[in-house]
């Protein structure tokens, strides 16, 4: 286990946000020509360097927040950034139901007061063969699972994204059957790498990246890391997930990053790391074999892609 308690650091949001406010004022005063809304985020990226793997470099706040998939705001990778301005993630609560001792709804504030927020710098590998390195802040999903008190019969978890077509223009189009749904096996959900992220680069989660709370499962393709979660269901059988429903021959339930199993339409053996010129070799389980390979030792990964 590489990323564990030894690397837990306090949540830096409050600190960085102060810096951000100061920075904005400063640039507002300096004013005009070269004002960039993103400049402030790059001031102190060095605090994340200690979490970086040897060959990795952090992607910038601008890269992470202007290029991603979040079909609720449109199908182009610039749409989430452009179309998420009207989304209001406050207040927020998460409904817990299914095979639990007592179905209930948690306010996000209550959840956050019960968990430890940590920095987690993870590689994110999109199924479209591009990747980034992102400094998230969040807490282990296992902590919320403990709060939810699932029954022993619960073997899977399903997550559901908020449905607000008036704030999420992409939901007015039938590209995906809304609301977006994803799922994990219980042992995947309990794995220490699996987090619910509430921030990135020390900021509250930007709308376009899944405000206010999203899943991050770094050894799986990005579409598994469901955003803006409003409901978590505990189930005894494998839940339906959005992309698998849409095109089961292309997207499986597991969706583990695997250079040996191609997407039917393109190769998964290499990827373009955003910001780099040459493609990289894609790593098995996105480079997290040590932490997660044991989960799949009895699974035929070619069949259960």
């Amino acid at each position, binding site marked *: 286990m590489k990323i564990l308690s030894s690397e837990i650091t306090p949540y830096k949001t409050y600190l960085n946000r102060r810096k951000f406010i100061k920075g904005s004022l400063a640039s507002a005063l300096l004013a005009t020509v070269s004002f960039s809304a993103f400049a402030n985020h790059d001031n102190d990226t060095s605090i994340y360097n200690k979490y970086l793997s040897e060959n990795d470099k952090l992607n910038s706040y601008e890269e992470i927040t202007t*290029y991603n998939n979040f079909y609720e705001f449109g*199908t182009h990778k610039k749409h989430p950034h452009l179309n998420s301005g009207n989304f209001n993630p406050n207040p927020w609560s998460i409904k817990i139901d299914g095979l639990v001792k007592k179905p209930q709804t948690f306010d996000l504030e209550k959840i956050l007061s019960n968990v430890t927020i940590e920095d987690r710098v993870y590689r994110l590998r999109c199924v479209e063969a591009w990747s980034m390195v992102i400094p998230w802040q969040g807490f282990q999903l296992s902590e919320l699972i403990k709060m939810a008190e699932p029954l022993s019969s619960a073997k899977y978890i399903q997550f559901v994204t908020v449905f607000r077509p008036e704030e999420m223009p992409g939901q007015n189009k039938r*590209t995906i059957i809304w609301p977006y749904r994803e799922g994990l096996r219980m042992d995947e959900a309990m794995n220490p790498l699996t987090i619910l992220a509430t921030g990135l680069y020390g900021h509250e989660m930007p709308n376009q990246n899944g405000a206010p709370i999203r899943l991050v499962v770094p050894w799986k393709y990005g579409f598994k890391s469901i955003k803006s979660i409003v409901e978590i269901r505990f189930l005894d059988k494998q839940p339906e997930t959005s992309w698998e429903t849409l095109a089961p021959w292309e997207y499986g339930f597991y969706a583990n990053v695997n250079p040996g199993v191609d997407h039917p339409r393109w*190769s998964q053996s*290499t990827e*373009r790391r955003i*910001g780099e*010129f040459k493609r990289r070799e894609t790593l098995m389980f996105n480079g997290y074999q040590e932490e997660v390979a044991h989960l799949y030792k009895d699974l035929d990964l070619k069949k259960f892609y």
Partner: protein
Amino acid sequence: MFSKKIFDHSKPFIFLLILFPSILWVYQFINGNLGVNPIERIMDEFGLMALRLIILTLVISSIAHIKAFKSITTFRRMIGLFAFYYVSLHFSTYIFLDHFLDLQFIIKDIIKRPFITFGFISFLFLIPLAVTSTNSMVKKLGFNLWKKLHYLIYPAAILSSMHFYMLVRANKSEPAIYMGIIILLLLYRVFKKITPRQLAR
């Protein structure tokens, strides 16, 4: 109504208009202004422009059936050659920038991925059309053979739009619209051919 002269005079203007995007994108690419994934972006832009120009040549051919617009064919060769220019840029981006001349990977990719196969065949179809685009080539081949050869634009158009359709993940409306236009234009041409002229008018 629209004399050949008007069309001929606007030719240089249209030439620059269609050339301009490629210069802009290359300029933006070099200056890092094409977003965070510039290779993907410039490849998409070149490809989409090529497909739109291919469709434009088909539209011109159909419009030219209307007497008043007959002279519009004067643009067709230029636009067709520009389509080939953009396809070549698109293909070169794929070969050199996207895969860095990793020929082993590229050949496997072309064979294994239907959408890349389609795009590649479409590119191959366009080569003889570009090569035989000069007046002397029309003479050399004879107009009838030349015309037959240039019907290749239809399979090339269909394959390019399929190439686009298949690479999109979920929102397939744009490629579907292009496909629809191509099929309509093709049906129109077929209809024109099999219907006696007197009846068609």
